């Protein structure tokens, strides 16, 4: 007879943190399989889920296995090995990475552990290093999703269909309520009244939001600082409200708890490892191989570490590479909270603290005694809340003027990335009429890419004109030549602007920057 456990949980796919149930079916032999069920009472998504949410059984399909010194080990043994490795780690040669794929309680405990070793937690959000600290509060500005519904105008700097699908219904509601929807990106969106393909420097001159408008953009590890600055400038100049979405369920919580310090770009982190500045890296539910633009390069670099410690809720290539793996419970079984992109504190309705206990034990090895209740209380205090399902980040935080975009620590600002950004290194010629050489290759960032989950996305998108110009054949492929290599890809005909090719799948050697490519048959 099958046994079934039902967990009221949160989708780990993006910073909206949609509510859902995970049904865990356990067979007589103890094998567990999960399926997704709809939680219609969830205040964030009313039971609706995107393609990634529906594919969560794939996300949870590979449980991690604890390892110590490169070999399978008991959980406690792995925790002890991690404590030994951290004690042996050279001062200033250790780094901690957690992008926000776990609870605030684990995040805060991880931060305590990092602090005990004299450092902080990296969240991969290099964007914060590109702005003066005075501007950080504006980046953390958010508001409720209902605010989008009542906006007079909605400006989309993301593609909601692909990047943050549960925003789509809010924008549709806004439109139903009479709002005008303007999309700024390389692809025409069916719901937009107006589609514009603009560079960030053109925003101020081409866009005139009325007061009461909402600017929907996002911040992620490869955000283009110029675009983020342009959105903030537009908001400041017009009185429109920016709404920054984020790619991980607890990106907002991780950012606030890290106080947006110690932020290197992921590229810089890899460079520092490559240069031997970091010898021990501890990743908490953050798969750097999946997150890196080029996993082959990332694997080479990570192999140079003395010790790679991974605490993970999922198995994968990073846990295979790691010296020490602390196999935590899957996210849906965790007790704790996440802070979503709205600034809403949400409780994950399960009871396991296995992952938390591992981190608390490690912190204890460095003289910091922590228990779950006191850590949760500290989390609530940090956000100024008394209970879950409340908002913390005031939408009335004034938008500081971000001077000039600062150069991120030791690396160039990342150009032209961004889910719906058409900016960056694309030729200065009018982008709608770019030739087939000098085509801008732009990623449509989405949860499948961030989390390394397989999807039916092995194709690129081109417009009909480009397809005809290149003489591409239906059902055939297009050859994409980039500075780092080439790939033959299936293609779909979409309403993409001239001069662009879009991909929802990470292509080898393409990097996450928008690059110029050449297209041919």
């Amino acid at each position: 007879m099958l046994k079934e456990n039902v967990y009221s949980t949160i989708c780990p796919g993006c910073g909206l943190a949609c509510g859902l149930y995970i049904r865990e079916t356990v067979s007589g032999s103890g094998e567990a399989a999960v399926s997704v069920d709809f939680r219609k009472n969830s205040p964030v998504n009313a039971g609706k889920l995107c393609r990634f949410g529906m594919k969560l059984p794939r996300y949870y399909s590979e449980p991690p296995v604890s390892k110590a010194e490169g070999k399978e080990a008991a959980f406690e043994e792995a925790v002890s090995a991690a404590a030994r490795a951290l004690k042996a780690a050279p001062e200033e040669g250790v780094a901690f990475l957690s992008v926000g794929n776990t609870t605030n309680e684990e995040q805060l405990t991880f931060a305590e552990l990092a602090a005990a070793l004299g450092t902080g937690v990296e969240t991969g959000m290099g964007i914060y290093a590109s702005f003066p600290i005075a501007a950080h509060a504006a980046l953390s500005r958010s508001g409720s999703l209902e605010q989008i519904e009542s906006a007079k105008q909605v400006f989309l700097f993301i593609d909601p269909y692909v990047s943050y699908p549960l925003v789509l219904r809010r924008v549709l509601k806004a439109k139903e309520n009479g709002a005008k929807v303007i999309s700024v990106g390389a692809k025409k969106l069916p719901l937009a009244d107006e589609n514009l393909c603009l560079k960030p420097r053109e925003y101020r001159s081409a866009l005139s939001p009325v007061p009461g408008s909402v600017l929907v953009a996002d911040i992620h590890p490869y955000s283009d600082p110029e675009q983020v600055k342009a959105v903030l400038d537009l908001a400041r100049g017009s009185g429109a409200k920016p709404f920054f979405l984020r790619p991980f369920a607890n990106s907002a919580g991780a950012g606030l708890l890290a106080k947006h310090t110690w932020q290197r770009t992921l590229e810089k982190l890899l460079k520092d490892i490559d240069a031997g500045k970091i010898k021990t890296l501890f990743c908490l539910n953050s798969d750097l191989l999946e997150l890196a633009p080029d996993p082959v390069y990332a694997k080479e670099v990570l192999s140079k570490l003395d010790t790679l410690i991974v605490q993970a809720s999922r198995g994968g290539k990073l846990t295979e590479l790691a010296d020490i793996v602390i196999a935590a419970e899957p996210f849906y079984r965790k007790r704790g909270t996440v802070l979503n992109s709205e600034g809403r504190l949400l409780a994950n309705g399960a009871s396991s603290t296995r992952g938390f206990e591992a981190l608390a034990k490690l912190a204890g090895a460095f003289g910091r005694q922590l228990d779950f209740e006191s850590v949760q209380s500290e989390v609530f205090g940090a956000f100024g809340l008394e209970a879950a399902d409340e908002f913390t980040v005031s939408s009335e935080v004034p938008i500081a003027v971000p001077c000039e975009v600062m150069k991120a620590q030791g690396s160039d600002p990342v150009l032209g990335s961004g889910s719906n950004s058409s900016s960056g290194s694309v030729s200065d010629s009018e982008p709608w009429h770019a030739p087939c050489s000098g085509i801008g290759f732009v990623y449509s960032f989405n949860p499948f890419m961030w989390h390394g989950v397989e999807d039916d996305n092995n194709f690129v998108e081109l417009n009909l004109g480009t397809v005809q110009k290149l003489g591409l054949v239906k059902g055939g492929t297009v050859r994409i030549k980039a500075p780092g290599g080439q790939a033959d890809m299936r293609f779909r005909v979409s309403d993409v602007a001239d001069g662009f090719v879009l991909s929802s799948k990470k292509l080898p050697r393409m990097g996450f920057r928008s690059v110029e490519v050449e297209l041919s048959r």
Partner: protein
Amino acid sequence: MRTGTEKGTGARKGIEIKVGDKLIGYAVSEDLRKRGASGGLVTALLAAALEKGLVDRVLTLKKLNEFEAVPVFTSSVEEVMESAGSMHSVPVNLARYLKPEFFSGKIALPAKPCDARALVERAKRNAVSGEASYVIGLNCGGTLHPETTRKMLETVYRLNPEEIAREEIVRGKLVFFTKDGEEHAVPMDDLEAEGLGRREPCRFCQVKIPTNADLACGNWGVIGEFAGRGTFVEVMTEKGAELLRNAIDAGFAETVPADEKSIAVREKVNKVMLGMSDKRKGEVLAPIEGAGERFEYFRKALENCIHCGACKEACPVCTCGEASKCTAYSSLADSYKMSLFHMVRFLHLSDSCIGCGQCEDVCPAEIPLTSLYQRFAAPVKHEYGYMPGMSDRTPPYFALKLENECGCQHGHDEGYEEGCGGECEGAYREEYKARYREEPEGGCC
């Protein structure tokens, strides 16, 4: 005055219960009568079925709060008792959870008409065993999406959801009972005029009394001394009679025969509800003239689809599993104006969509999928007079002979009133009666 809900006044052990009986029933336990809606009969039936081993498990809703519950299988009588009470703001279709891997032994479940219809469709496809399931049908005038309920509470009732103790739909009004003992009622018509109220598919639903279940239970027709304290129950099948006998013999429930007035009131309420549905159906499912216009209508309606697949996952009549034609022959890489996923699903559902609305409840792009499926299927359904989920003896209409045995080509829908006197008359009458609870005025053809 005799109070019918006092223990010992109604039918007890050894009572003859037979198919076609119309009764008023209630739980014997005072606690259950308080916790359950309309005298707690349904909960008593489920609990007794478990207690006496008539079934191995019950599929029911585990209540988390007034607006949230999770479908669970249980063999605990206590857990069944805790599930008591109406939950109009938990619009799930329980049939979806009856999967072959869970279907061992005998199962009982409460079922709105759409749950019962979905079960029939699943049984036709051998995804569930009709013999092993005991279906306690619940009359249904419609359900509410919890997001809408919260909005109504906030904007119309001016109540905090935390204050709500329970809710009921009484004589066309949605009533919230707050923890301070107060009642707050607003007519459903007023709510629906504001774009609130029932889910859209409920507004044009064509079955209000689940005559396709083993028992058809509800508070319509419960009048006089039993009002608010009893359930009108009609015994539809021998399994239904077995359920009722079992509960009475186990001392969980009692019944008294429904009088003529009760029966008449119930029929009247049903007819009024169906009339409202017919009106809405006419507005929402009107035919679209012209092939080009039709295609453009469906293409436009689906243009915001993000291909999440939630509609298929939530669909209680989809039994294809991983081997679905709609997903196997469709790819995100396709450049078609309308995806093959939708094309295949439209065809697939044209003879099986029971209009439960689960698909559009979970659609992240707010596509009114149920209306679309129903509108797509309407012309052919009308042609063949076919209503999915009402009888497991009626094959999908693609399998119907184009000519009836009498030689006519007429369907058995309510629209055919001229009689040919042929052999299809009986089938027509059976379907008409199942829906309208009365004899048709005209004949089949």
